[in-house]
């Protein structure tokens, strides 16, 4: 089981801030592929990976990051702090 979090317009498109999933995905990229097949709103949120960022256990990561032992994955647009 893995917690998947969504922020900003990713959260708005998917329609929820967080969900708990059972997945056999090996990498972040696999997880995205799995999510895209679920429903239109996921397909919409994940259609352009260049505009997405990912954090794995609260650290910025690549889409190729492995998910073994990971508790939390978050998807969000490029950050606009400061």
């Amino acid at each position, binding site marked *: 089981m893995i917690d998947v979090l969504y922020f*900003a317009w990713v959260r708005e498109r998917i329609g929820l801030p967080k969900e708990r999933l059972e997945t056999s995905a090996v990498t972040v990229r696999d997880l995205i592929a799995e999510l895209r097949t679920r429903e239109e709103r996921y397909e919409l949120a994940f259609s352009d990976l260049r505009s997405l960022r990912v*954090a794995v256990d*609260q650290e*910025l990561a690549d889409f190729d990051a492995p998910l073994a032992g990971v508790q939390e994955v*978050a998807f*969000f647009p490029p*950050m*606009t*702090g*400061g």
Partner: protein
Amino acid sequence: MHVSVQAEPFDAGAELNRFTAQVAGAGAVVTFTGIVRDTAGVLSGMEIEHYPGMTERAIRAMQNEATARWALCGCLVIHRYGALRVGEPIMMVATAAPHRAAAFEAAEFLMDYLKSRAPFWKKEQAAGGSDWVAAQDADETALCRWQKD
């Protein structure tokens, strides 16, 4: 080293004085304050979303790096989230060092990283609706300056 991620407004002047009173041996204190700016005269406010937990962790990592790299005497980051009004302070950085170059560079380093590497997302609100602020290429480019060879 202090970090505060908070919904409440803060008093930048009071923070500067408290910070300066606490740092020992500093000859130079630099602050940056970011303010909600109504560029086009149409903004009614701003909403800032963040990633609780990761935000504090990311900021602390930036502070650790800045403190080590510029031998800072002190380093402060305050960043708000939630609903903000035009003219209100969004965030503040303060750095203290023996000399001015280190204090300036460390403050700019922290700002560049907070812009693009701390999990905050700004949404601007106007009469016509609200929109997520787009990340600027220039902010991403700014980070190159801090790459070590």
